């Protein structure tokens, strides 16, 4: 697609919107950041986040540019099950609800998911977990950065590299200024913008195209998209379910929120966020099914969403789409920057490099790490490596291997370090083999299955029982 020629917004309008939102987000980052006095304020928003902000941040973080771009892509490639399968990503949020309560009980002073793995399973399992977790975090950051550049280019014609640089810079700046408090505060506003936008877009698509015309065009041109028994799509459905669970259960993005929410809020906020997340991929994804009815030739599947929106909505709608995309990108990028910075700070810097670092030193390092992550992401994003969907799905092999070590470690005393370590290594290895040998839609399935078997066998063979009290030492600790 030649996006410069087919862009629906003038680049000057794009720059104006970018400038307005940049000023607003950065000002809010500074405004909320003023209240940060201690390290806990910066990293965990003071550990007193309420139900409204808690629900919105869980929801907004999980509604990413991948949701707004890849859900239509999957609808176009896998049909109805593509968008329904994407919706199953919400199950991860709902299942994390009891875990969030358990995490807060077991680690009242915890900072990261790494804290738990280190105290629960020991140093070597912790290191393997950190490799998986950081690969995932960087991969997600890259996919978000790339999505930013691609979308800004497609909608406004602004050069990919420049658009990607702008979105990354804005998110780094306000995360730097306000820490998790700024991330959570802006997430609330971004949630309202995203949902308002996708609902408006969906209603306009229904009015313009209509279900009957959409259905008859699909039957004529792409009947496989309406096939409810499409084998690859059904496999994708279960794969995406496990992928979503794996992403949420292991990632510090979600653990840091479990630590940041008020004691009685975690369970309810994650459950409600999961419930209200369910329809979002359907609302955002189904517009791709209008492509045949509109006679659109879609050269790159991950561009179908913006193309349909551009065809249907004209100038006012194009501005709306741009705001939705910008909000979706920012709400996830900022969360990921903050949570990954916490993980690198606590588990790499304090855990491995400077165990005696003071809180003041850690606060300085936290800001430097946010900048460093932004620069690394920017460098990797400069060339557009692959389509967003395949990059995202590749990570499924990694994250699904962590589901069972996390769940077993939180609830079962007989879960042990050897089993958890082997589960992550074997699960990731077999999932990667399945990704290349069979297809992207089975990577997470194979990885989770191998990991589960390994954990269960190791528990059956184990004679030792873990003492939960050992987890209370989460405030101090390192590899040395």
């Amino acid at each position, binding site marked *: 697609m030649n996006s410069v020629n087919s862009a629906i917004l003038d680049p000057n309008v794009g720059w104006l919107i970018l400038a307005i939102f940049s000023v607003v987000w950065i000002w809010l980052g500074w405004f909320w950041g003023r209240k940060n006095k201690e390290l806990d304020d910066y990293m965990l928003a003071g550990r007193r986040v309420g139900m*409204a902000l808690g629900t919105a941040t869980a929801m907004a973080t999980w509604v990413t540019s991948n949701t707004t771009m890849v859900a239509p892509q999957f609808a176009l490639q896998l049909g109805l099950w593509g968008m329904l399968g994407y919706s199953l990503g919400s199950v991860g949020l709902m299942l994390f609800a009891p875990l969030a309560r358990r995490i807060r009980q077991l680690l009242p002073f915890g900072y990261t998911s790494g804290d738990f793995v280190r105290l629960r399973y020991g140093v070597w399992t912790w290191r393997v977990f950190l490799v998986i977790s950081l690969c995932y975090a960087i991969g997600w950051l890259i996919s978000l950065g790339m999505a930013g550049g691609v979308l800004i280019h497609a909608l406004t014609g602004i050069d990919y590299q420049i658009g990607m640089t702008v979105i990354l810079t804005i998110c780094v700046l306000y995360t730097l200024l306000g820490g998790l408090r700024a991330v959570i505060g802006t997430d609330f506003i971004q949630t309202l913008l995203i949902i308002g936008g996708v609902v408006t877009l969906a209603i306009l698509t229904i009015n313009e195209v209509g279900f009957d015309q959409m259905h008859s065009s699909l039957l004529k041109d792409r009947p496989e998209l309406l096939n409810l028994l499409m084998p690859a799509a059904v496999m994708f459905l279960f794969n995406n379910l496990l992928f979503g669970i794996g992403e949420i259960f292991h990632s510090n993005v979600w653990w840091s929120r479990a630590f940041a929410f008020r004691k009685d809020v975690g369970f309810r906020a994650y459950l409600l966020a999961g419930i*209200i997340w369910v329809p979002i991929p359907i609302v955002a994804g189904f517009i791709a099914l209008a492509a045949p009815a509109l006679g659109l030739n879609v050269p790159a599947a991950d561009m179908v969403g913006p193309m349909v929106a551009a065809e249907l909505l004209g100038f006012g709608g194009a501005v709306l789409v741009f705001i939705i995309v910008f909000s979706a990108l920012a709400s996830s990028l900022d969360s990921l920057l903050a949570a990954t910075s916490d993980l690198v700070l606590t588990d790499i810097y304090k855990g491995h490099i400077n165990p005696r670092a003071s809180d003041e030193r850690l606060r300085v390092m936290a800001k430097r790490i946010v900048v460093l992550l932004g620069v690394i992401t920017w460098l990797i994003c400069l060339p557009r490596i692959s389509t967003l969907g395949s990059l995202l799905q590749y990570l499924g092999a990694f994250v699904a291997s962590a589901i069972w070590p996390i769940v077993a470690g939180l609830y079962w005393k007989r879960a042990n370090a050897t089993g958890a370590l082997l589960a992550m290594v074997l699960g990731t290895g077999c999932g990667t083999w399945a990704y290349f040998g069979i297809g992207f839609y089975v990577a997470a399935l194979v990885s989770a299955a191998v990991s589960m078997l390994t954990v269960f066998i190791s528990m059956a063979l184990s004679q030792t029982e873990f003492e939960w009290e050992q987890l209370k030492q989460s405030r101090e600790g390192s590899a040395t």
Partner: protein
Amino acid sequence: MTASAGFLAFIVTAAVAVSTLTPLILIYLWIRDWIKQQLW
């Protein structure tokens, strides 16, 4: 097995309806937390 136009319409309309309610739920929760001084 092919999905009918009615099935497609049902799924999408239900999703749009639930999504329309979401901002209202969040704003209600925000007001409730703000009154109780429990925003953060």
